[in-house]
């Protein structure tokens, strides 16, 4: 390839290239470097690299270059540990120093003279990209575990959380309280007031139940349709029953009218509760479900607690 094409290649490349000889005299200064250093090629070629820049070069950069020239071994300067070893700036004229990753590779001429090529890449974009990807993945992770209607955890998150909480409780012989909660006569509510109003009720009930939680370990999730599930740790059976009463009262006190609720004429919930130290043999979740079924049978707007 003719030399003039090679020069075009050096200048077209989207990477900073500097070649210096063993005395640190600049032999190559490509367009990328000229643009980011705001120093023209003519003002750099033939001069000592340290003298070309108006600002001092970082000591680690200088010793890396010295080592590469002395031993003929390549050196890398990571952006993580050095940020900005050379006084190079963004092109917007904001005088913002570029985040750089630098590679210094030894070159040997046919006459056996040692040179080195300094490659500079701009890490700003990759840092931005990483940050964007991370924030996207955080958003996705949040969305994957959130119920879109109510904003509380969804069934997927609950299933995973229950698995972990269950095994922890078995191992640490810790008591687990499972509350299965269902909105009473919800189908009748939907039929009479319409689905949009039904959604609103689900949302309000979810927020009301969530507002009763106080500890970081407490978890409430939408189990399905108008059904919710709550897991609390370390409560005695009495404490758990008291808590269930509190949940039931909180929803009752909302006093949301429900003409088709035969007894109460307002929105109420039924709760099935099971508290105990779980083990593989006893399924605390289905026990709470049985308790919920009994709460429905016994007239609704109530809590039934079953021992494990």
């Amino acid at each position, binding site marked *: 390839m003719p030399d003039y094409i090679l020069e075009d290649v050096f200048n077209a490349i989207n990477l900073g290239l500097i070649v210096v000889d063993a005395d640190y005299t600049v032999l190559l200064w490509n367009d990328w470097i000229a643009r980011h250093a705001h120093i023209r090629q003519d003002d750099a070629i033939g001069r000592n690299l340290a003298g070309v820049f108006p600002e001092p070069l970082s000591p680690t950069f200088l010793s890396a270059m010295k080592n590469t020239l002395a031993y003929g071994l390549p050196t890398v300067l990571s952006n993580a*540990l050095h940020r900005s070893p050379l006084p190079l700036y963004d092109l917007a004229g904001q005088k913002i120093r570029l985040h750089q990753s630098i590679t210094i590779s030894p070159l040997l001429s046919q006459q056996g003279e040692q040179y080195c090529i300094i490659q500079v890449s701009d890490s700003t974009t990759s840092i931005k990209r990483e940050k964007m990807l991370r924030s996207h993945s955080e958003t996705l992770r949040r969305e994957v575990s959130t119920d879109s209607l109510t904003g509380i955890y969804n069934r997927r998150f609950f299933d995973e959380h229950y698995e972990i909480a269950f095994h922890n409780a078995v191992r640490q012989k810790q008591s687990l309280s499972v509350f299965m909660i269902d909105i009473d006569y919800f189908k009748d509510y939907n039929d009479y007031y319409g689905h949009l109003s039904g959604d609103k009720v689900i949302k309000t009930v979810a927020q009301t139940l969530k507002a009763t939680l106080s500890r970081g370990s407490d978890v409430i999730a939408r189990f399905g349709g108008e059904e919710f599930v709550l897991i609390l740790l370390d409560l005695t059976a009495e404490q758990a029953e008291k808590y269930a009463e509190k949940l039931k009262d909180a929803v009752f006190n909302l006093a949301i009218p429900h003409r088709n609720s035969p007894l109460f004429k307002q929105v109420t919930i039924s709760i099935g509760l099971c508290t105990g130290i779980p083990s593989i043999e006893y399924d605390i979740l289905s026990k709470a479900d049985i308790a919920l079924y009994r709460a429905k049978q016994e007239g609704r707007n109530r809590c039934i607690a079953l021992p494990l």
Partner: protein
Amino acid sequence: MQLDALAEVFNVGAGRAASSISEIVGDEVKLSVPAIEVKQSAEISPGILSLNDGRFGTVRQDFSGPFDAAAMLLFSEDNALEIVRDMMGSQMSLDDLAEFEQEAMCELGNIILNACLSAMADMLSISLNSSLPCYTVASCDEILDQVTASAVQDYILLLNITLTSARRQSQGHLILLLSSASLTNLIRHIDHFLSEI
């Protein structure tokens, strides 16, 4: 005898690497190479490398000259992350580190490997060429596959490396893979060096 001389070479290298790292960290870091062993590639096993389960951060540079070798520096993945965190200052969480890990570990490995190679070059009056450092995270089995797959490299030089900073002490391994011809050449150069003392 030759092994002692080689251990000395690597300790000089480790000293140089430690001072470079200290400069970057702004805090004193010590590196030592307490032991050096020569093994046949065939007899290598996780036990000999004292590698347990888990994943390892590996920096590899292939070098050539009077003898050819592949140099691999191994730290357990957790250890590698902690070292990098120390080097970068504590303002970053381990999660934030993931993106910088590869580059920073590459540099750390590059500093240690270059220091050892240049110490060797100085003492044995030779010059070595090297590839750019390459960082990978691999399991113990994958590393052993790499070691044993290079059939031409029948020997390995095994060095345990201890990196001590104010906050922690980390154990790593430096492995040099050598062909028998290269090992012979290396020994010849060491003999020459010893005869000149």
